[in-house]
Every structure is written in structure tokens, then in C-alpha cells.
């Protein structure tokens, strides 16, 4: 009824290949962006921005990064946390070496380093598949984590072994460091995330995106159709790590302000993987939904019972959160293994045929 594409004719291939061929989708996206850029900054409080929106956007971007590799190119990775760490440490080093260069530029450049590292650890993917590949990425995870601890140059020989983000400004507005306002950080994170998400969506509808999906769906057939497996996989590793690296750098620059090596541990990798799987493998919109679910649900469970007057011990809440998140993961895998993105599609289909069942 409301979501119906009847009467919308496409007269060129150009229009047919646009990201949102259906008018209602375009309106929906416009509304979301309107909320993100105008409504939230006007109404949200600090807690909502710093503990919900900023982490949500950072994790969404990281999930898009992992999705490029695991969802689109079909290479399972458990090392995304460490690749995020590479981005963070690279950005930190860059900003200490070039304190006058715009920090957003440096954050974007830092991804290049994690892309390089990612490509190196992607090399075995030519010979190794599936779970076996997961082990090589696990090697990356543990090895890089060890490097973050053992190479003091990376954290400027700080006695604490942690990186702490100095104050940096752009156009006279403080955007990093403790003094940066949540609004300023929010805008930086929002713009970067939306921008990269858009660019990646473009890549996915063109030749390179297709070549990744070809490798994912049937690597042998892809090779017989002229896809060079090594280059294609390495590109996926590099692009994925680049995005994860930028997300990692944003995590410490615009959200946490300081990071220890343990911030980029295997736990983070798993968190991102959850987001990708629950959101939907191979879906950019799904990455956002997965990130929202995995990040916001625990926050919700943690703070809402207290806010509405239910007295539960802090640790009981934590235990319950673990149990509920675990159970929900299993639940969603059972009801819809293709994630929220598929549910969303099904929902749209339902709307399309409403009021008839099909």
C-alpha cells in the first residue's frame, strides 16, 4: 500500500542501477539522514551521543569493514579488532609526528597502514579457506596485540603503555581530546561513517564488488571466468582493513580518548563479527542494524532497569546481559540466519503486497 513501486518506471540503465531505485527507499534514507544530522544533534544529551551514537557509528563502520571481507568476499576473519588497533596506533603516531596536520586527514590516512597489514595477513587466503583462514586471522590478532604491547615506539614510550589522544582542532573547533564536545565528535564520526558507507556501496554495485561476491559464492567458477583470486582477495583484505583501521582510529580519537592494547583484543573482533552476522552478511544496511543491536542492547539492559526503578545488582545486570545477548544471538540465528537485512527485505515485501498475504 504505502510501499509500492508500481508506476515507478525506469527509463535508463543508469536509473535502474542507482543505489535506491525505489522512491520510498529514497525518502526513507532522507528521513534517516535528516534525523542523524539535525534532529539528534538538536535533542540528544551527552550520554546519548557519547555512549550510544558515537560508538554505534564507529562500530557500524567497523562492521562494514568486516562485512566487505566476510560478507562480500566470503573470507572469515577473527582479526578485525587488531586491524582496528593498527589504525588507531597509526593515527596516534601520525598525529604525534605531524601535530599540525588535520587530524581527520590523519585518521583517514591511518587506514592505509592497516590496509597494508591486512593485505600481508591476507596472503595465506590464497591457499587457505574457511575455518583454517580464521586461524590465520587469529594469528594476526594475537601477534598484533603483542606488538601493541611490546613495541613501545608505537605508544611513544608512555609509561602507561597506552595511547592518549591530544587535543586537536579543526576550523577552531576542538574535535579530539577530552575537551572536544560530544556534538563535534558526533559530527566527525557521522560524516566519515556515512561517506565511507556510501563509497563502499558504490564499489559493491560495480565490477570489483561483483568480483568479491564471485569469489565468495563459487571461487573456482570465478577463477574460470577470469578473476584473479589472489589480487581479488588481497584487495578485499586491504579495503576491509582500511575501513576497520579508520573505525579503530575513530574509536580512540573521537570516542574513548585513550586506548590500551586490550581495547583491541579478540573480544572486539568477536563483537564486530556478531554485528556482521546478525546484521546480515553482505549487507551494508545490515551492518548498521547489527551494530545497533549489539552495542545498544547491552547499554539498554544496563541502564534502563535502574531508570525505571527496578533494583538489580550491577553484576546481576551484567550476567543477565551476557545471557540475553547470547540467547538472542542463537534466537536470531535460528529464526533468520541471514540477519536483520533479510528480515528488513521480508518486511518490505510484506508492505509491498499489503493487505494481501502474498
Amino acid at each position: 500500500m504505502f510501499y509500492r513501486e508500481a508506476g515507478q518506471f525506469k527509463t535508463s540503465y543508469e536509473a535502474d542501477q542507482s543505489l535506491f531505485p525505489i522512491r520510498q527507499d529514497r525518502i526513507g534514507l532522507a528521513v534517516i539522514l535528516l534525523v542523524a544530522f539535525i534532529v539528534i544533534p538538536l535533542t540528544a544529551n551527552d550520554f546519548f551521543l557519547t555512549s550510544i551514537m558515537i560508538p554505534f557509528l564507529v562500530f557500524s563502520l567497523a562492521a562494514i569493514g568486516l562485512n566487505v571481507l566476510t560478507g562480500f568476499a566470503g573470507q572469515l576473519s577473527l582479526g578485525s579488532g587488531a586491524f582496528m588497533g593498527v589504525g588507531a596506533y597509526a593515527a596516534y603516531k601520525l598525529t604525534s609526528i605531524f601535530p599540525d596536520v588535520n587530524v581527520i586527514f590523519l585518521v583517514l590516512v591511518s587506514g592505509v597502514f592497516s590496509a597494508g597489514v591486512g593485505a600481508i595477513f591476507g596472503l595465506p587466503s590464497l591457499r587457505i579457506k574457511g575455518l583454517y583462514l580464521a586461524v590465520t586471522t587469529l594469528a594476526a590478532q594475537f601477534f598484533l596485540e603483542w606488538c601493541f604491547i611490546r613495541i613501545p615506539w608505537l605508544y611513544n614510550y608512555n609509561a602507561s603503555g597506552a595511547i592518549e589522544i591530544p587535543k586537536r582542532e579543526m576550523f577552531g573547533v576542538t574535535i579530539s581530546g577530552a575537551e572536544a564536545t560530544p556534538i563535534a565528535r558526533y559530527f566527525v564520526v557521522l560524516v566519515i561513517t556515512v561517506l565511507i558507507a556510501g563509497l563502499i556501496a558504490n564499489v559493491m554495485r560495480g565490477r570489483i564488488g561483483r568480483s568479491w561476491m564471485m569469489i565468495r559464492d563459487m571461487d573456482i567458477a570465478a577463477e574460470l571466468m577470469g578473476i584473479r583470486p589472489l589480487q581479488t582477495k588481497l584487495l578485499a583484505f586491504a579495503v576491509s582493513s582500511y575501513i576497520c583501521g579508520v573505525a579503530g582510529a575513530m574509536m580512540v580519537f573521537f570516542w574513548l580518548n585513550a586506548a590500551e592494547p586490550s581495547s583491541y583484543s579478540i573480544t572486539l573482533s568477536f563483537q564486530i563479527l556478531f554485528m556482521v552476522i546478525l546484521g546480515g552478511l553482505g549487507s551494508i544496511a545490515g551492518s548498521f542494524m547489527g551494530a545497533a543491536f549489539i552495542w545498544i542492547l547491552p547499554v539498554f539492559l544496563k541502564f534502563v532497569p535502574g531508570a525505571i526503578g527496578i533494583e538489580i545488582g550491577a553484576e546481576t545486570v551484567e550476567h543477565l546481559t551476557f545471557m540475553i545477548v547470547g540467547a538472542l544471538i542463537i534466537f536470531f540465528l535460528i529464526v533468520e540466519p541471514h540477519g536483520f537485512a533479510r528480515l528488513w527485505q521480508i518486511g518490505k515485501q510484506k508492505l509491498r503486497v499489503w493487505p494481501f498475504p502474498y
Partner: protein
Amino acid sequence: MLYDIFIDPFVQMVEMPDFFLQVLWEGFVAGILYALIALGFVLIFKASGVFNFAQGIMVVFAGLTLVGLHENGVPAFLALILTIGVMGVLAYGIERVVMRPLVNQPDIILLMATIGLTYFLIGFGEFVFGGEPKRMIAEELGLPTGSTAFEMGERGLVILQHIDIAAAVIAIIMVTALGIFFNKTRIGRALRAVADDHQAALSVGISLNQIWAIVWFAAGLVALATGIMWGARSDVSFALEIVAFKALPVLILGGFTSIPGAIIGGLIIGFGEKIGEIYWGGLVGGGIESWLAYIIALIFLLFRPQGLFGEKIIERV
């Protein structure tokens, strides 16, 4: 530098043979414990193709149940029996609630489900037993806790912990028992049939559900044994869960479906890790144990992607 890498470690090994023996022994024990964890993975992978990430938390959970029951006044042996019961219920529950609805899903989905299970069990375990580490009731279970020292030469000393010897013995018994179970019993044959082909097994009247419940229960028993042994070495706490990751390189070396492979893989990783850390780790600041096993597995994979005991895979189109 070259001297430090290629010569000095071997000189040390020869100069302090007692210490080298001790290192080998520690490697052996660590290897046995890794192998026990890997064994749990193998059992489940063999029968259902599921890579069970929850094996690590099952180790913790089994250990905590045992200790928790004992703390509440249940005699040690009764607690052991009850814990076995709990693991049985857990296995049945997992089969019923997680495995059965997810049958025929891709590997990664099943893997994620076991990670979800891990989260659930972490929360549930802490909810029931609390988060503090607990002392394993090794003595109460009649496990030896002392140590024996063998003197070698003038200052030489090799110390063997009795609990470690017990761990080795128990591991050997478990592997033998599982071997017999797999090869000689009706259920074992059914299990191997399921491992080869689910549908074919179904068509000859084997109940998948029953088999899965059984392997999860067997994995639970292995987890309990691992929990007791590892718990006796350190403590039973949730930090132990991370040790489960070590099972991955072990499985890479030994192959995902081979029980002897798990043991040999475990020993290789155990020896490799200890020798690497002790004799070469110092060159890069130590602590290389956290990744050495994975790098060993990675290098190994590059040269022999099918594992030690796997056959070369011929790809068909």
C-alpha cells in the same frame, strides 16, 4: 645476533640438561591439556561439522559446577557424579535448543551459534557461581597433589608434579576409551556414519538428534576432565576460557576430525611453545607464547593445507 638465534639456545640445552628436560616435561603437560581441549572440539566437529567455540566455556562451566557443588556441602565424588549429570542435561539442552533448529545451516552460522552459546554460558555461570576464581578440589577427588624431584648431576633437578602425571594418564585413558567407543560400539559406528554423511546416515535409520546429544555429552565429559586438570594447575575461573583458543592451532596441525591428530597436534604445540618461549622468546622480549602457536599453525598451513593426517584435497568442478 645470529649466535643468539642459532647457537646459544642449543648450547643452553646441552649445558643444562636437567632444565631442558623440565622444559620438555612442561611442554608435554601443556600439550596434553591443549590436546584435551582439542579433543572436545574434534568430537563435536566429527559428528556434526560444528566448530564448537563453546568448548572453552564448557571447561570452565564443568569445573565451576564441580567446585560449586562441593562448596555447598556435596561430597566430592557425589559432586563429580552430579556434574556429569549436569553436563548431560547441558548436552541435551544444546542439542534440543541450538543444534536441532540450526541443522543444515552454513558453517559460519553454526560457529556463531556456539559463540552465542559461549556468551550465554559465561553469563549463566557467573550468575550461578559468581565471578571469583575457585580452587579446584583436586585432593578431595583423590588426585595426587605432591611432586617428585629427580636429581641429576650436581645441581640438576627435574620436578614432576603428580597432578600433571595424573593429567597425562587420564588423557591417555580418555583417548583410548573414545577410540574403543568409536570403533567397537554400535553408537560409535553410527557416529562415524553421521560424520561421513548426515543424509545417508539418516536414511539407514540413525537418529541424528540422539547422536548429537551423545557427542555433546562426550565433549562435556572431556571438558570436565580438562576443567579438573587445568583447574588444579591454576584455578577455576572465567579467565580460563581464553585457553580454548589454543585448541585452534592444535586442530590445524592435527586435522579437525582426527582424535590421534588432536593429541599429536597438542603435543607439537605444547613442546613448540615452551621451547620457543624459553630459548628464543627472550630475544624479542618474551611473551611470544600468546601467538607462537598460531604462527606455527600458519606456517604449517602454507606448506600442508590439509593438516598432518588429512589427505590432499582434489578440487572438482
